[in-house]
């Protein structure tokens, strides 16, 4: 009944025997002990569980772990390099883009997908891109500012970015 799968999570290969019905979010949280990916609804409506699968944002509560077999998954824990925050993480911090923090990993991962596709989005683009992610604390305004902030930083050359720190 169980199926052996191997998923590359944040650069680390993880293999396990799992039930076919196991959700990716539970695999990440239980098997890989990466609890930064949150469960807000289990119905793909709130976006708290958003991760990147092969670079594209997916809601890990409606992806089966077996569907991620052989793929690479990035979670919020995989963004920072040591103490060096990802520009999106920095943006959320600087612009007060979070309060309770529960939706934040999903917001960041969804924004990551957006900036990958569209490095200089307008505010309206950002708001549209985040329409599958719910935040109950911020009223979204500072989240939009956070993504804008990251977009600014990411469009600068790497050397200039390092110098600005």
């Amino acid at each position, binding site marked *: 009944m169980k199926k052996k799968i191997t998923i590359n999570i944040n650069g680390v290969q993880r293999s396990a025997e799992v*039930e076919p*019905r*196991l959700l990716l979010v*539970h695999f990440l*949280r*239980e098997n890989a002990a*990466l*609890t*930064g*990916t*949150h*469960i*807000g*609804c*289990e*119905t793909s*409506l*709130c976006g*708290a569980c958003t991760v990147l699968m092969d670079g594209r944002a997916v809601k890990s509560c409606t992806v089966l772990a077996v569907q991620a077999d052989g793929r690479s998954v990035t*979670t*919020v*824990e995989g*963004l*920072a390099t040591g103490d060096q*925050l990802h520009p999106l*993480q920095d943006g*959320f*911090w*600087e612009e*007060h883009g*979070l*309060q*309770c*923090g*529960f*939706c*934040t*990993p999903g917001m*960041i991962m969804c924004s990551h997908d957006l900036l990958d596709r569209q490095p200089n989005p307008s*505010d*309206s683009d*950002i*708001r*549209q891109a*985040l*329409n599958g*992610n*719910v*935040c*109950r*604390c*911020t*009223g*979204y*305004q*500072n*989240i*939009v500012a956070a993504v804008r902030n990251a977009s600014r930083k990411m469009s600068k050359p790497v050397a200039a970015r390092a110098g600005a720190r």
Partner: protein
Amino acid sequence: MTRNGKSNGASSNGGKGNSDVRWFGQKLKRKEDPRLIKGISHYTDDFKPAGMLHCAFTRSPHAHAQIKSIRIDAARALPGVVAVFTAEDTTGIGPVPCAIQMPDLKVPSHPVLATGRVRYVGEPVAVIVAEDLYTARDAAELVEVDYEPLPVVTDMEKALGKDTPHVHEEFKSNQAFTHSLKNGDVDAAFKKADRIVKQRMINQRLAPIAMETRGVLAEYLPGENRLTVWSSTQIPHLLKTQISLLVGLPETAVRVIAPEVGGGFGSKLNVYGEEGIVPWLAMKLGRPVKWAETRRENFLATIHGRDTINYVELALKKNGTILGLRARILADLGAYHQLLTPLIPQLTALMHAGCYKIPAIQIDIVGVFTNKMSTDAYRGAGRPEATYNVERIMDIAAHELGMDAAEFRLKNFPQPNEFPYTTITGLTYDSAKYQESLKKALKLAEYDNLRRRQKTGLKEGKYYGVGVSTYVEICAIGPSAATPAGGWESGTVRIEPTGKVTLLTGASPHGQGEETTFAQLIADELGIDPQDVNVVHGDTMAVPYGIGTFGSRATAVGGTAAYMAAQKLKAKMSTLAAHLLGVKPADITIGRGRLTADGGKKSILFGDLVLSAYTARNIPPGFEPGMEATHFFEPSNFTFPFGCHICSVEVDAETGEVKIDKYVAVDDCGNVINPMLVNGQIHGGIAQGLGQAMWEELIYNDDGQLLTGTLMDYALPKAHCLPEFTLGSTVTPSPVNPMGVKGVGEAGTIASTPCAVNAVCDALAHLGVRHIEMPLKPERVWRAIRQAQSSGPKSESTKSKPPAKATSNARRPRA
């Protein structure tokens, strides 16, 4: 700035070496954020003690039914299931507590698992414990319950009628309580009025929807007789007391930890049956047990907010002067009382004076049982309902008198020199400048331009509207005399031997950012850097008893407790410094990193002073070693933040769609510790209030089934639904506490709901539309337009009296 000089972002100034910097008022980046943005913080569901079991609940699919039998064999037989329990096993736990006492309050028994009957959809009937989550949920489906359905009552007006089912047979009525507030000569005011404006308004039922659902994890160590409960709660200490009563352990054996809490909005200001069951399971089974609420359960079985029907009347002179206000309010309480269920409508009564001079008032409230989940505190908790009634009726009155909405309000405000102002409802508003706030908002919104656009728009067939909402709210809850469980808060400041500071606060932040703001205020008092202050909260074993975070109280009450503790500590520091420097304590000045005397000629480093308090080899006689002080702060009054919100909308006459194209908020919450965080609270509050005005609604059908019980059906505001908010502020310090702070957590939610509805009704007033019930879905707005166009302008206002009480055949209006 940390000691090694790494910047942590005070955006303007503030670094070591700048001795003039005051952290109070700085836009400091939050100390709690790094762990949250890295995904390495821990919410309740993120903990997994060794040997942990999972539990799931079987819940009632019926709104009202007799439980004929429960068969648990199939569930118990499923491999991986450890135990299945029903009400007959859990008679020793509970009941679910209600903290409110009122003379005529009917308090039904509220067991942790349904006993004999179920009274709302989602009521827990059985609990399953299993080795893993999937098995627990599978088994929950295998519990067979034989129900005999009973008649259901979901309409609160029908519930008060004669031939109605009773939610609790023993009361022979669905009336849970009555509450009246009367002051001034109301009858005379209405008799001499030139005009009486009346409106029936519904404040619909809402779901708080914290992004983190509820969760409880419990571990019991019998040897130590130590029960540790992690719960996603706003009130860890009160919960500790209640859990000890629920499960029958001495309170000293119970430790509650509110770890990272993913939002509350009042829904976690409660004590739920699951918070009794899960600890009991851990004790009974000898293994840690966790329950993580599903979103579906969160909709069905976490408290709801609002749900009142309001008959509001205003007596006026021709010139717009208010003579009196009368309101009759029905409050749908649901089937059982949760912790504060009957209190919320009383807060509504209290706030009906709004920010106006009202010489006579009468508010009559009836609390009603229905076959639904309980209502309780949801962001604003009673005040949004009051403000909605007041601000809507003010707008309707202004329209009827042909006065401008802003002008009408200005006419009825108390003057700044009348504060502290005693309202007709018996409250003493601490400080305010309502005029300044309104005028600032008018300017920021370019009100005259909006009105001009409205006029010219009409010529082009475009419907623009402008909404004004001037609010006052009651915060810093509150004086203990006015609260069910104490309205004070505790704060302990401890300077550790290395000079680092620990602040223990009884407040229990869950997104508000007090780890940062409290560090700012303590840093100023002790002359140190906020990075050196570690704010500890949410652990009843670490923190002295406290009350918690709700009612916009954390900063004004909890922050003040911390501030007062710091004053005690400063006195102690001065005593020791004076001893060491050979001066009088009064001569000591506490500066940045150093205590000085004689104009700086004598000084001692902060770190040296603290260390000498611990080594205690050279201390004055009678001086207690160590460097710690605690203060339990009892506020003398509430605080009353206020403000003015203005929005403009465009209504599409063909589709009924509403577009909010401008939103301006001018809020006054007294002195501000961190403006960035205050703005964040206002943004979020506005979004939630607009959610009520425009989209959100819990709908139960006549069978008591929740029709909008998923995030697909319950329309929360998303990023693309909301405009960019423009914020302004005025600062009127509160005289109630030494920092002059007031509180800001609920302001946005209170002000924005009537602001949006006023704007939409304003846009359609020329058609004769007087009122549209929330949420302002396109269909409702479209119907209101069509109805007005077919019947022409009409007015509900007369000089006649309102119905003395609701009739049993009254129906919810179709908008």
